[in-house]
């Protein structure tokens, strides 16, 4: 090896580095001028989302992010959930329900076309509903549809759904993305190239970065859609979310996850910060099947030890106190926050009655989500005041699902139950709380059988009371929805009755 070739080596390296540096500077210059020349586009919207949808088919995976991106923009269902959580017509124009609540007749909307040009008719509805409850179905929400006995095509514009037993939540379930209507031709490939009937067509996906939708040329009412391009950008890190908004890379963040960073955005005159409601009840989930939590007195003691104001202040004040497993904005809600009011003396007395005058030790397993981490510290402190010594352990999400949810190997955990109408979990056998109440199960059967919705609301109130009285879990607060978007953007949902981003009424002022 002589010095000549070594000199070549170093020379080449030097040239390469020089080139890199020059390229950097050139790149910067060219782009600054380009960025400044671009004005804001009025038909284009960049939406930030904090989790990436793994696939683009809600019938294959439970991730909420899939629903945010695809329903109802790409896929539609028979019913449609509106911004207040009410069910209106979707791909079904109207429906009628038989007296006994077992037969649903759906009249389908005419003039609907799939993005691939196929006209929509009853055969697609039968195909899509049949695969929900089929024996080999891998739909994540299969359990919502197992009451369905059969789906029949009456004529190309009418479908009859017959149930084995009445289910007063069926219309709601059939309005979810899990029951999206697909065509048999594209159903197998919808996870990568989704085809639906919605106002937007899938254009491209850059894994790990973004998903781009464009206005559908075949949509039945094209005039109502004001946006031509919608880009969902994935931004996981909360401070990166704030920076992306401040730098103008993103126009809207409908589900902003970091309340502690919101103040900064509130002060910025370009943004509107909109606080709304969600279906997420944050609970101190309790293993009712395990000592000492199988003792009602212990659970009542915990309920008395909960200081909700303090927990909500850890959420920077965003959140509404709850006393049962039910969302305060629902019209069937009943305020039960005073069932076991905050009272440390009473809590201690109950613990002593249960045989734990000096308290006991317990673990609190927390999933890796902001609200649980924040509430976890506060909760451990509050329980410490009545003598329950908490050891906190933080789990990854898959670990939480296996250890806590599936194997029920836990004492306490904090988690938000984000589905609507999820009071039914208290009637489930083998659910991770280990709560088994014949009284509640009977009440829930009544709820399901009630086709008169006023009667159903009354029954729902009674069901909430049972759960609250039994102090099944610690009921903490309802998660707030923090939406941040540019002030001249109109029409995004203020509340989140279901995890979807409805873009049909969205436009720039």
């Amino acid at each position, binding site marked *: *090896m002589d*010095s000549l070739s*070594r000199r070549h080596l*170093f020379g080449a390296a030097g040239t*390469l*580095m020089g080139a*890199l*540096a020059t*390229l*950097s500077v*050139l*790149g*910067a210059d*060219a*782009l*600054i001028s380009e960025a400044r020349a671009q004005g804001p586009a009025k038909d284009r919207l960049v939406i930030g989302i904090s989790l*990436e949808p*793994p*696939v683009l088919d809600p019938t*294959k*995976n*439970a*991730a909420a992010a899939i629903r945010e991106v695809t329903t109802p923009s790409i896929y539609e269902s028979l019913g449609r959930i509106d911004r207040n959580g009410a069910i209106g017509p979707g791909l079904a124009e109207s429906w009628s329900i038989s007296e006994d609540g077992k037969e649903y007749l759906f009249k389908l909307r005419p003039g609907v076309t799939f993005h691939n040009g196929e006209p929509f008719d009853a055969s697609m509805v039968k195909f899509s509903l049949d695969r929900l409850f089929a024996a*080999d*179905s*891998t739909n*994540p*929400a*299969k*359990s*919502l549809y197992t009451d369905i006995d059969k789906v029949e095509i009456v004529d190309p514009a009418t479908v009859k759904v017959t149930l084995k037993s009445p289910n007063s939540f069926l219309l709601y379930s059939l309005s979810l993305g899990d029951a999206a209507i697909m065509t048999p031709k594209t159903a197998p490939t919808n*996870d*990568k190239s989704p085809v639906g009937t919605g106002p937007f067509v899938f254009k491209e996906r*850059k*894994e*790990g*970065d*973004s998903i781009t939708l464009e206005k559908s040329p075949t949509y039945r009412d094209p005039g109502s859609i004001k946006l031509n391009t919608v880009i969902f*950008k*994935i*931004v*996981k*890190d909360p401070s*990166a979310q704030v*920076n*992306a908004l*401040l*730098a*103008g*890379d993103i126009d809207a963040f409908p589900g902003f996850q970091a309340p502690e960073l919101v103040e900064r955005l509130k002060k910025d005159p370009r943004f509107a910060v909109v606080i709304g409601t969600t279906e997420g009840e944050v609970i101190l989930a309790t293993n009712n099947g395990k000592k000492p939590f199988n003792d009602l007195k212990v659970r009542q003691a915990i309920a008395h030890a909960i200081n909700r104001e303090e927990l909500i202040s850890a959420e920077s004040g965003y959140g509404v106190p709850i006393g049962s497993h039910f969302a305060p904005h629902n019209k069937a809600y009943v305020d039960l926050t005073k069932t076991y009011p905050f009272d440390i003396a009473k809590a201690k007395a109950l613990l002593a009655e249960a045989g734990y005058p000096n308290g006991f030790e317990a673990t609190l397993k927390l999933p890796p989500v902001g609200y649980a981490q924040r509430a976890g510290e506060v909760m451990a402190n509050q329980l410490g005041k009545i003598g329950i010594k908490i050891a906190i352990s933080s789990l*990854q*999400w*898959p*670990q939480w*699902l*296996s*250890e806590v*949810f*599936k194997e029920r190997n836990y004492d306490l955990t904090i988690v938000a139950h984000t*589905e609507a109408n999820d009071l039914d979990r208290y009637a489930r056998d083998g659910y991770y709380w280990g709560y088994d109440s014949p009284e509640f199960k009977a009440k829930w059967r009544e709820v399901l059988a009630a086709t008169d919705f006023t009667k159903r609301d009354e029954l729902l109130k009674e069901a909430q009371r049972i759960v609250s009285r039994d102090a099944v879990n610690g009921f903490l607060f309802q998660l707030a929805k923090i939406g941040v978007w540019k002030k001249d953007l109109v029409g995004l949902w203020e509340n989140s009755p279901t995890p979807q981003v409805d873009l049909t009424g969205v436009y720039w002022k």
Partner: protein
Amino acid sequence: MLEFLSRRLAAALVTLVLATIVVFAVVEVLPGDPALVMLGTDARPDTLAALRAKYGFDQPLLTRYLQWIGGLLTFNLGNSHAYGTSVSKLIGDRLVVTLPLSALALGWAALVAIPLGVFAAWKHRRPGDWGVMGFTQIGISVPNFWFGIVLVLAFAVTWQWFPAGGFPGWQEPLKSVHALILPALSLSLGEIAILTRVTRSAMLDTLREDYVRTARAKGATERRVLFHHALRNALIPVTTVAGLIAGFLVAGAVIIESVFRLPGVGQLVYDSINNRDLIVIKNVVILFTILVLTVNLLVDLAYALLDPRPRIRA
């Protein structure tokens, strides 16, 4: 020479086989059920079982290991469970972000660190040296993600010279390089500090050599002594360390990619662990094992070419 080469190659292969066993074992003992992660809390037991059977999670460990190795040998890595796309495409799409990012960071680090190190050695035990050493102390201590956030606040939010994050894709090459500048800067901070220190101490060693004194004695200019005589020999340890740093850069990219929302390999690994997308984790880790082994092999070869001694000893 041939014997030396074949020995090194055999050692690398044995390492690789051991690595596949370790990686497989670690991935398999990760707590968490991939099917449960995909289908969520409402999934029925029969649905979970159906999905496990579909992806072969119910097969015996040995079968699954052999299937994976078979796939590796035939370059058929299979499909990601979470994304449904082919693993090789998934990794390929991410490498085009992470490799340029690391290269840019390494290039930038070398460009800054070598002159700084030479300068510090030249000003040995004088204020210039102290200044540089102070800077490297900060560079090693400051977490690079924090530095990244500060860079974004300054250059993307306040002055808007650079995007705050994201990656446009190489069909827009200028924009892509532009998007990688701030991440590369924050990624390189720690590496600059390390390389500066290595350059400085290597320079101090060579500056003490007799031949440098001879060069000075025969009246060579200070610049010629520093760059022509001393630096050239000092660069050998510097190159070695720069090679080692390349591995750390990929690890550092996990966090930097998150701060700047770059769809790189680091993010892919992070997401795959969270999704329990076992097949992706296994293949990415093995790919990087192969990369590191190759780099080591090349460094060994380069030594053998540059310096005859290891060849003889080997």
